[in-house]
């Protein structure tokens, strides 16, 4: 889908000089600073940038909508020749859902938990008087079928919590289509999904845009995804346009340095060679079965982690990755099996472990925000484990805190007295690393530590972890669903599916054929920067399924 192939190039959306302000502490700050956007009918525009770049705000502004605490202060938003800003509130509202529709990042949170899917689907056409309830319901079932949802006749009669994330995202796309709008805003529609689900939703979105000749704005921070979807790409930073161009041109020949740096992110590779294996593994999980209540989660898990090694555990959400971490830390005593540390069996329950046993295994979490006490200063956050595990006090403690801050590349004088709220996302994650290091562990469990961060920031964290590993010969258990991260940092890889280990080995052996069937699916689902990747992958899978059907 390139712009050249489009014959219908009627202008649909034209945003000129858009400025949006957001209110913080009674002061209005400009968050979008004079952005121009044009979009033709049937065209897909990719908006890309890091968090805080103003992507979502611009997407919402295309509906004439500003989030609470924000206001559109200047500019024109022509939709189909009418300036949305000139309309009365009532007139703008009457266009929403009918002419312009929105697909949110988290379908699970954006569906009302109190109503069935079909009720929420039919609400837009019925309330706007486009369709009767019967017509709308029938149309809903038709759209569910076209979007290849399972049991399209009945799935609408379920509540959102009874439907999986990927299906909900499709249902939300169906809902956006219910009035056959001219424009749909997709706001990170696949960010919350596993790669294997993402690929299906991407295909779905592309198909419907083609089927209904709908124009779309596709907002994402994932370059490889936008490469598959968009006809043209606009790169944003700090509320300004950095660069815009047709997709292929943008990918092959980015002009601005910032764009180039975004493109280069995935190039990071771990530097050092793996150390020699020590005879006794640092941590060993042996034949572990674990369950939450009566629900079994892990089945017969066995793996080893050696000193100085990074072991990545990959799998989809619900595959038991984090549960394995909870078993090792003793938060969830296993039903069967044992955890060994340096050849010694650890008590299954953390409450029965000695302080020293606890000290040796530290954790870093995905959400640095919630893992830090917002009421404690950095000095206390890092100082607490120093006192608790190592009994440090006074000057010695203060010196060690400063040393740790230097290790994570935060200037001690500047940061030591701050609260977590005064840090950026990446700095918070660094702080969590420092807190883990304070206990002087040999083994750190990193649970999706880069998933909530922008790519550039995430890369910084990976480099830091890599450097620390070399300096302190740490072992990492790196839980992630992002295979690019695994490629960057892992020495060994464990692939999990439904609570079982399907494959484990060195990174090279897992990532090179022959693969286990599931590893193959996982690997082939990771989008690549090549704009033809999606078509190619679909083609390959079709061949495979024809072949296997023929056998």
């Amino acid at each position, binding site marked *: 889908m390139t712009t050249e192939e489009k014959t219908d190039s009627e202008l649909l959306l034209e945003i000129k000089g858009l400025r949006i302000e957001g209110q913080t502490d009674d002061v209005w700050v400009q968050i979008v600073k004079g952005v121009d956007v044009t979009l033709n009918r049937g065209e897909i525009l990719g908006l890309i940038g890091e968090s805080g770049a103003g992507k979502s705000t611009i997407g*919402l502004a295309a*509906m004439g*909508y500003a*989030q*609470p605490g924000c206001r559109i202060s200047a500019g024109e938003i022509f939709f189909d020749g009418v300036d949305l800003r000139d309309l009365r509130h009532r007139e703008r*509202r*009457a*266009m*929403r*859902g*009918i002419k312009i*529709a*929105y697909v*949110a990042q*988290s379908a699970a*949170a*954006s*569906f*009302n*938990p*109190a*109503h069935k899917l079909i009720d929420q689907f039919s*609400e*837009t056409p019925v*309330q*706007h008087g486009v369709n009767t309830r019967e017509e709308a319901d029938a149309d809903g079932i038709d759209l569910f079928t076209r979007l290849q949802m399972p049991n399209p006749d009945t799935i609408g009669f*379920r*509540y959102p*919590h*009874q439907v999986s994330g990927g299906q909900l995202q499709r249902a939300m796309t169906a*809902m956006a289509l219910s009035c056959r709008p001219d424009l749909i805003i997709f706001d990170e529609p696949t960010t919350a999904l596993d790669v294997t689900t993402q690929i299906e939703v991407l295909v779905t979105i592309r198909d419907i845009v083609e089927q209904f000749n709908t124009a779309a704005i596709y907002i994402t921070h994932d370059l490889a995804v936008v490469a598959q979807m968009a006809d043209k790409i606009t790169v944003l930073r700090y509320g300004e346009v950095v660069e815009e161009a047709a997709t292929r041109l943008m990918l092959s020949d980015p002009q601005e340095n910032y764009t180039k740096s975004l493109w280069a992110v995935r190039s990071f590779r771990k530097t050092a060679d793996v150390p020699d294996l020590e005879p006794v593994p640092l941590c060993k999980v042996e034949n572990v079965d674990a369950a939450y209540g009566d629900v079994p989660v892990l089945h017969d898990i066995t793996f080893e982690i050696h000193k100085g090694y990074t072991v990545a555990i990959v799998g989809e959400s619900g595959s038991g990755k984090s549960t394995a971490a909870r078993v090792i830390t003793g938060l969830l005593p296993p039903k069967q099996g044992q955890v060994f540390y340096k050849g010694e069996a650890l008590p299954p329950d953390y409450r029965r472990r000695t302080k020293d046993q606890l000290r040796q295994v530290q954790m870093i979490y995905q959400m640095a925000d919630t893992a830090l006490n917002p009421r404690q200063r950095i000095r206390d956050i890092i100082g607490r484990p120093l006192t608790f595990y190592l009994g440090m006090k006074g000057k010695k403690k203060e010196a060690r805190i400063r040393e740790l801050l230097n290790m994570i590349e935060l200037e001690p004088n500047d940061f030591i007295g701050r609260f977590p709220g005064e840090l950026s996302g990446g700095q918070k994650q660094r702080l969590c690393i420092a807190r883990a290091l304070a206990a002087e562990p040999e083994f750190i469990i990193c649970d999706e530590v880069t998933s909530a961060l922008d790519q550039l920031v995430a890369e910084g964290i990976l480099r830091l972890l890599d450097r620390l590993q070399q300096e302190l010969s740490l072992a990492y258990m790196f839980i992630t669903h992002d295979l690019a991260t695994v490629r960057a940092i892992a020495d060994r890889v464990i692939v999990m599916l439904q609570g079982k280990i399907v494959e484990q080995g060195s990174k090279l052996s897992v990532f090179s054929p022959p693969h286990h069937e599931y590893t193959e699916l996982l690997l082939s689902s990771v989008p690549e920067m090549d704009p033809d990747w999606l078509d190619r992958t679909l083609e390959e899978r079709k061949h495979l399924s024809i072949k296997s059907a023929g056998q």
Partner: protein
Amino acid sequence: MGKILKLIGQRLAIGLLVLWIVSLIIFAGLEFLPGDLAQEILGQSATPESLAAFRKELGLDQPMHTRYLGWLGGALKGDFGVSLANQREISELIGIRFANTIFLAVLAAIISVPIALTLGILAALYRNSLYDRMVNILTLSSISFPEFFIAYILIYIFSVNLDIFPSLANVSADTPLWERIYTCLLPALTLTLVVVAHMMRMTRASIINLLASPYIEMANLKGMKKARVILYHALPNALAPIINVVAINLAYLIVGVVIVEVVFVYPGLGQLIVDSVQKRDMPVVQACSLIFAGTYVLLNLTADILSIITNPRMLYPK
């Protein structure tokens, strides 16, 4: 559905346990009060012999656990014994008064609950407007005044000056329904003013709490009208806390109306319990307390069940 029945069963069982513990506490508590009925009736000048004889007649000479078990056994059969003060059947004595109390509570609830919910929803809809502030000021002022004060103000305005409603809420068993409602309107209004603020504020807060949710933004982006966003998208998700506050206030309407009953001389349960405590008429106090406790347990149980029924996550598991 079976899951809910099981849940109701569990809650009921716990409720019964609570009632039993309450009965123990009440019994023990009254036991520790200085003096007893015999002393109260015979007065300061009674001789030890006459006191002993009178106690024997009333059964007060039995050890505590014997009396407790005897009482509990009777209560289980619905027989609370006889009033020590006037020898009347307690169940009969309480029956009429309990019906009166319930009648007043229901009347107050019928007035206050819809008013509170409507005010709360409108306050959420037009939050931070002049209307919102007025409603908040008015309801909060009314809850800040003591009940008897509100009662006397209402009497002053509606009985003394305007002469529309009677100042005494004197009803008997054969009062016709309409007259009964008419007579009880002032006490019901007093109670309404007392309970509306709590329920209204909770309704408002619960709804406003949800307005930042992604699904509310989604409803706005689907072009839904403001009223529909509040009523169809926010309210169903705010029901659980609202139901709980309503239940607590209903319980208060039944249990906490003593002062209002006294001011309006209304023959309800509250007055009876006050009189009986004064007279050391233990069986009556015990029976009343047990009924009050039962009311609380039942209303909270109802609130729990309603909260579950209004939450599809609980009702329809994955």
